[in-house]
């Protein structure tokens, strides 16, 4: 796939380094469990105004959980808008929102290319749904706003050679980070919002060991647990107590519905915590 507008690597495909020890015996879960309480989220660092040339910008960092090789989530977001729409676009009585999410090539264990793949476009659609509820759209007719998020470091555990389950759970953590950082950047850009929207993730996990019953944890790191049964990512407006985007994936028996409502409740709790950081950061920026 030689992209002639970029410098491509050698014609033959290159192989990521394979480490010796995980080639032989499997990855032993050496006391990797979760050291945080079930309902506390990881510490977050949020700062607005990192890109002066954009109309609004923000940088968010989840601190990594200290285990070797586990990297925290690092996101940078820029907002361009409200700006005029291209000539060809039809009249719209409200602001046209377009969100782009892109993993940096060095962000994940498996090196990602420069072209956006379907999972990133999917995240973009989720983010648009989450933010469209929060923005007061009809105050900016005939204008557009571009929200661009670059994920500088995805929170994947580099040491585990075999990924437990597919990487959707990392996507959910990334989406919750994207929602929070985009909301901060929108506030920095001065676009009217009904409320600051923050993202939170809650998951039903099963830890190592035979007897452990599945429990609900907040802001999960997939590699901490033996198996993730289901997770949900919530975009939540705290003062209005409303949910603008709900994304659940997993395998819950429909019979006991309490499990699902508990999961959603924990997700909202996670986004309330994240929102506190968001409000405090915006407070600093204005004072």
């Amino acid at each position, binding site marked *: 796939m*030689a992209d*002639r*507008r970029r*410098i*491509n690597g050698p014609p033959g495909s290159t192989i990521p380094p394979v480490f010796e020890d995980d080639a032989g015996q499997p990855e032993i879960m050496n006391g990797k469990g979760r050291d945080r309480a079930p309902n506390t989220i990881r510490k977050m660092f949020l700062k607005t105004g990192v890109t002066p040339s954009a109309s609004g910008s923000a940088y968010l960092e989840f601190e990594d959980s200290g285990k070797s090789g586990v990297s925290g989530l690092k996101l940078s977001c820029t907002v361009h808008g409200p700006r005029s729409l291209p000539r060809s676009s039809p009249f719209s009585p409200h602001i046209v929102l377009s969100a782009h999410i892109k993993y940096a090539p060095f962000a994940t264990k498996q090196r990602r290319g420069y072209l956006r793949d379907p999972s990133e476009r999917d995240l973009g659609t989720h983010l648009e749904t989450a933010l469209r509820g929060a923005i007061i759209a009809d105050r900016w007719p005939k204008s557009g706003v571009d929200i661009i998020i670059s994920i500088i470091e995805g929170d994947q555990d580099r040491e585990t050679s075999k990924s437990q389950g597919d990487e959707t759970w990392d996507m959910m953590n990334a989406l919750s980070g994207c929602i929070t950082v985009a909301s901060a950047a929108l506030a920095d850009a001065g676009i009217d919002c009904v409320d600051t929207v923050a993202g939170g993730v809650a998951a039903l996990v099963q830890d190592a060991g035979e007897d452990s019953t599945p429990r609900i944890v907040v802001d999960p790191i997939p590699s901490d647990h033996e198996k993730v049964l289901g997770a949900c990512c919530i975009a939540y407006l705290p003062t209005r107590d409303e949910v603008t985007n709900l994304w659940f994936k997993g395998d819950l028996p429909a019979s006991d519905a309490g499990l699902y409502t508990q999961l959603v409740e924990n997700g909202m709790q996670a986004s309330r915590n994240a929102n506190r950081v968001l409000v405090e950061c915006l407070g600093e920026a204005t004072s």
Partner: protein
Amino acid sequence: MTVTTAPEAALGVLPRADGSAKYSHAGYTVTASVNGPIEAQRRDEHPYEAHVDVIVRPAAGVGGTRERHLESILQSSLTQIVLVKNFPRSLVQIVLQVEDAPENDYVNTKLVQASLNFAIMPALFQTSVLALLSAGVPMRATATATAVAIVSRDGTKTSVVDPSPRDVEIARSVHVLAFTSHDELLLAESEGDFTVQEWNHVYETAKDVCCRPVPTKEGMEMILDDEHTNGPDLRHFLRSTMENKVASDLHWK
């Protein structure tokens, strides 16, 4: 060491373009076509001046990032010599097609290369100036460019004008300098490992090649025996090519 053949050029080779030129020197043959001043696209329209658009097509394969870099260098240099202020909101389009490059089995013949090719730049430069002249685009001055490589062979450092790809590969440093007809330095691209003195020496050599004073008829013999004129006299070549073209066009007079 390829012998330094004298450059040859032909003007008006393409029937449909406003102006065209074919120039071959040191193993490179380039054909250029100029369409000037024509209506510009909306996005690169400039209110006060013409937009000079350069397109470089390599000998083989489709252009890569290297061609974009060559185009941006040529565009910024040619915008200085074309009177862009006379044609606001218009476009001067220069298309350069590399006919063939000196083949050389030492050098890796990979199709899409990303690093800057210094040896071809003078040929592209001369061809575009000739094509602009043939198209009658008003210009403030003409310009000529040359490439110089500093090759260290068994200890001694010698500067080679119009180096072959083999020279470029083993050279300590490669330089391309372009001068306008008012003897001003228009373009200086150098790469490698050199000191300020070496660059000064290269500057002298290049200036001599590009801006040798045009010999008047009687002063012809006096120049010939000068010891360090080891490159073609480009300005003279440019002038004589134009003179032949004008003479052949007006033969009916």
